[in-house]
């Protein structure tokens, strides 16, 4: 059959069943073997950095809309940056609430990613189960924040929507319900044989490559790099104990399992945070316009998210620059794809969890 082989170029996306978002990967195929890959990004470039700099008060809501999957991480990162400019100390209560909400969002994001991987390798039922458990968290955050996607809970100086005692109870109950379900999912992801056949050893991305391409988050942790920005102790992560989940296999399976294990870790962190909630105000007032420059980092579900903010005491910000996790991870596909089979492409692409909306922003 190889003598008949001719190079076919097939475009994946920007509108494609396996991708949620407009990402365009051009694959050069020989038979069904990928011999070349090319990324074409920018379908989602809206010009956010310009718009974000127009009015720092309104930008707090716009920055959530950089991305709906980790919207709360964006707004927390942004608020952290501005709080640094103001030099205010955020109350512990607000920091704990941020931590809890960020972990909830990590759960929804990781379950989405896991379901996505299952779907990409043709395991429809597992995809459905992941999304079923995800809905439990989605309804929980809907009850806590008032919206399923954009929590809009942050203000500069804390959180504007407090979590009452019944809501604490609600979180506890939901976490109790979710944990066994996640454990069951974990068993399937770990042991399922057909899933294993499609993920073990697929899309290898060894540690030197992961370091070279500057990947972050679960992608780098799955390649053995023990880096997790949460160890910096932003928000209330200094108050909780956890060790980053690191795997050495560096394949699709490892990236999948890192996320699966992190889901359970998130449940642990949330449960650990709840009893720590102190009484007192959830926000402090800030006065005047900000000046100076600041970096702010959080560990978003997909890795390190960084905001650079420069302000000169006006409503407009002088410059705001985002460095988002997917921007670092997506290009790494160019290292993973060549040499693989067409059938493995969706799995590999989805395993880095490409979110284009913040890559292009």
């Amino acid at each position: 059959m190889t003598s008949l082989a001719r190079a076919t170029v097939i475009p994946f996306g920007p509108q494609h069943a396996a991708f949620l978002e407009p990402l365009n990967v051009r694959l050069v195929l020989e038979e069904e073997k990928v011999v070349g890959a090319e990324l074409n990004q920018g379908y989602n470039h809206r010009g956010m950095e310009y718009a974000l700099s127009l009015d720092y008060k309104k930008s707090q809501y716009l920055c959530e809309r950089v991305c709906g999957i980790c919207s709360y991480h964006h707004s927390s990162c942004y608020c952290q940056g501005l709080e640094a400019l103001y030099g205010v100390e955020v109350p512990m209560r607000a920091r704990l609430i941020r931590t809890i909400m960020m972990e909830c969002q990590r759960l929804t994001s990781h379950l989405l990613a896991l379901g996505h991987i299952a779907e990409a390798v043709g395991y429809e039922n597992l995809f459905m189960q992941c999304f079923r458990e995800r809905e439990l968290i989605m309804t929980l955050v809907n009850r806590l924040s008032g919206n399923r996607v954009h929590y809009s809970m942050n203000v500069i100086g804390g959180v504007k929507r407090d979590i009452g005692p019944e809501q604490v109870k609600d979180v506890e109950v939901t976490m109790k319900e979710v944990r066994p379900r996640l454990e069951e999912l974990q068993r399937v992801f770990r042991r399922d044989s057909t899933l294993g056949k499609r993920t073990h050893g697929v899309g290898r991305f060894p540690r030197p490559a992961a370091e070279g391409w500057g990947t972050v988050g679960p992608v780098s942790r799955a390649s053995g790099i023990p880096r997790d920005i949460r160890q910096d102790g932003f928000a209330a992560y200094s108050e909780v104990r956890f060790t980053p989940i690191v795997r050495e296999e560096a394949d699709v399976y490892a990236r999948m399992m890192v996320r699966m294990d992190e889901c359970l870790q998130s449940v642990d962190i949330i449960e650990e945070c709840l009893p720590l909630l102190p009484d007192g105000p959830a926000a402090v007032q800030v006065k005047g316009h900000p000046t100076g420059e600041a970096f702010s980092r959080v560990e978003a579900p997909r890795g390190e998210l960084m905001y650079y903010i420069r302000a000169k005491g006006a409503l407009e910000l002088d410059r705001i620059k985002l460095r988002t996790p997917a921007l670092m991870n997506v290009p790494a596909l160019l290292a993973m794809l060549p040499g693989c089979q067409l059938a493995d492409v969706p799995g590999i692409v989805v395993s880095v969890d490409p979110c284009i909306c913040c890559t292009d922003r």
Partner: protein
Amino acid sequence: MSLVQGARRRSPWILHFDTGSCNGCDLEVWALLTPRYDVERFGAVNKANPKHADILLITGPVTKKCEDRLRNLYEQTSGPKLVVACGDCASTGAPFHNCYNVCGGVDKVIPVDVYVPGCAARPEALIDGLVLALSLWEKRMEEEG
């Protein structure tokens, strides 16, 4: 003709296209396909292929780069077809109204039949939008003869 209309209403095949949204509404569109909202009970399935689709669920404010793609997709879809703009940014482009690289809403590029408000549009709102769109079939069929 009522047989055809009945079948139409009960078999809306969906094409979802993200034209530069924040993913919020896309996730809610996906939530529609999964156990909790499961629109397959209305016969709706995600076909991801314009040639098979009846209803286009479009999210996002339409970035300049997606504009031609969107128009292409619309033209490739065989009629009768309906377009649902999902979410605020697909309806009016509002959340991104200060961004320079967007067209500001799906209806600037292709005709839209149903506008679903919300940021993010709730799955229930999307179901309402779908139901509203399906009730427009009759009108659409008269128009197209």
